[in-house]
């Protein structure tokens, strides 16, 4: 069954879009990340213009993070103070990101930048996760209980000025750190249409040293507002948010997420992370291949301008 997408200005199979949303939801349920990093490239593969894919995906991220935040908030797993500091950076970053996006679109390089950013990001994250899960599996085989490590290591970043106390995260660190992190994630969010959870979560654990219990809830808090900001700015400046497309993705995600969490409950964490690493690397490889391979046609058209 085909449906015409009014902003993307083309017809597309309803079930394909629904399945894409479902896959993103499945990932969200399984790994606690938004799944946007997979959905956006796939939307582009099936022929949605990158600008529309990114902006509509940001809209879907809102729905995804609000349903996840619901649970986390009730369990008290949100460090509101940390969330707000992250958000301060996130708002600036995402606003700058949309401006950058608009400019890149105008000079005709947005597709390329999206592809390159995805390749760099996904391959580095995928490799990190793969190594981490392999070494964990290996260590566990040798030492089943595992030694109890320090809460977090102290290094240079903990010596920066403008320190703030984050009670819930049991941290006393410079506010620059979360603001910068939020800023970078905001840019990522605006250009790639992702929530950025797959970068934010490891960064919060390894870089900020936050306890894992509050990481998911706090990152969801920041992602929700950043995604809303991106959606608003994309709609206001580029007019590229396709509500019909977003609606189908959201509905797919609503169905996929609980299935994902049920699968996650049955599999050990290391296996999950290894699976996700393989998936992430697969997407990165495909995108890299697209960049390197001689395109079937060298030509494409930029936006049509109807002159008055």
């Amino acid at each position, binding site marked *: 069954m085909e449906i*015409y997408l009014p902003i993307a200005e083309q017809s597309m199979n309803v079930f394909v879009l629904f399945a894409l949303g479902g896959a993103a939801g499945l990932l969200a349920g399984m790994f606690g990340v938004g799944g946007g990093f997979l959905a956006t490239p796939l939307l582009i593969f099936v022929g949605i213009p990158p600008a529309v894919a990114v902006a509509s995906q940001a809209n879907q991220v809102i729905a995804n993070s609000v349903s996840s935040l619901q649970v986390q908030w009730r369990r008290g797993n949100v460090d509101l103070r940390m969330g707000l500091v992250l958000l301060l950076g996130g708002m600036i970053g995402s606003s700058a990101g949309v401006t950058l996006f608009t400019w890149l679109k105008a000079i*005709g*390089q947005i597709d390329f930048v999206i592809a390159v950013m995805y390749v760099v990001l996904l391959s580095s994250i995928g490799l990190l996760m793969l190594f981490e899960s392999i070494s964990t599996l290996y260590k566990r085989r040798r030492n089943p209980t595992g030694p109890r490590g320090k809460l977090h290591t102290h290094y240079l970043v903990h010596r920066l000025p403008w320190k703030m106390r984050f009670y819930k995260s049991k941290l006393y660190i410079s506010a620059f750190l979360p603001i910068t992190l939020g800023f970078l994630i905001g840019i990522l969010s605006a250009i790639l249409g992702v929530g950025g959870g797959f970068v934010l979560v490891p960064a919060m654990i390894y870089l900020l040293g936050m306890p894992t219990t509050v990481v998911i809830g706090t990152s969801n808090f920041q992602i929700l507002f950043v995604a809303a900001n991106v*959606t608003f700015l994309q709609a206001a400046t580029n007019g590229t948010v396709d509500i*019909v497309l977003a609606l189908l993705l959201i509905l797919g995600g609503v169905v996929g997420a609980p299935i994902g969490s049920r699968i996650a409950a049955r599999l050990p964490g290391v296996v999950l992370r290894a699976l996700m690493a393989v998936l992430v690397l697969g997407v990165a490889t495909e995108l890299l291949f697209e*960049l390197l391979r001689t395109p079937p046609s060298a030509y494409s*058209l930029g936006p049509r301008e109807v002159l008055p």
Partner: protein
Amino acid sequence: MRRLGLLLLALVLAAPAWAQRVEQPLPAPGIGAAPDSSLPPSVPNTPGMPELIVDLSSPRLSITSAFQGESLLLFGMFDPPGEIVVVVQGPPARETVLRKERFMGLWLNTGRQRFDDVPAYYFIAASAPLQRLLARGAGGEILSLEDRLSTIRPVRPRSPARLAEFRQGLVEVKRREDLYPANFGQVTVQAGRLFRAELPFPSRLPEGVYDVRTYLLRDGKIVTAVSRPLPVGKVGFNAELAGWAVVDGPLYGVGAIILALVLGWLGGAVMRRL
């Protein structure tokens, strides 16, 4: 939520009004409209009965939620003898042609050329091989795609060879999207005076007022021509949404956010119960 509901209701109610708005600015050339005054008719019209009558199976092309491209039927009658040529042209606009080149091993858009007055769509149908008809002297008025594209103006001047490459690239992309169909259409003539032709429109169809022009040729000369505007536009829900996104982007953005919040919240709550 109630406000959103009201908003949606208002959209639905406003849809018919929008559809009417589209119609008004257009002249309504009914059946057997007078030939376009810009064309020099080489044979004067006989009083009373026009020599060429043309109509379309639909007065407009509506892009609905189920739109996947559409074929319109053009049909009519002419005073024999003669040949019929139909030229359908989409609204002209500025198009940017981008060319990918290999840069440090990666393919990226490095070449770029903008053209003005590029027709969104171009299709020709004829009752006899077009080359033969055009060779006999009607070429001045009826343009093949190549001739039509030689009239588009580059925004930035370049060497003719480079421009020709980009022009070829433009045709390549438009062909891929079926906006410049590669084959000429067939005008079928029945009983010596009735004719019909199928006009194919693909799913990625730019909006605007298309021009459907039918020519009656005799001995390679244009005897008369009938021009019919064909409005192509989104209707109903699609039109409202797209119009909303253009007219009031910020409000549209807020609407999109509310929709996602509500669906995400409800979806999360419902699926957790199951």
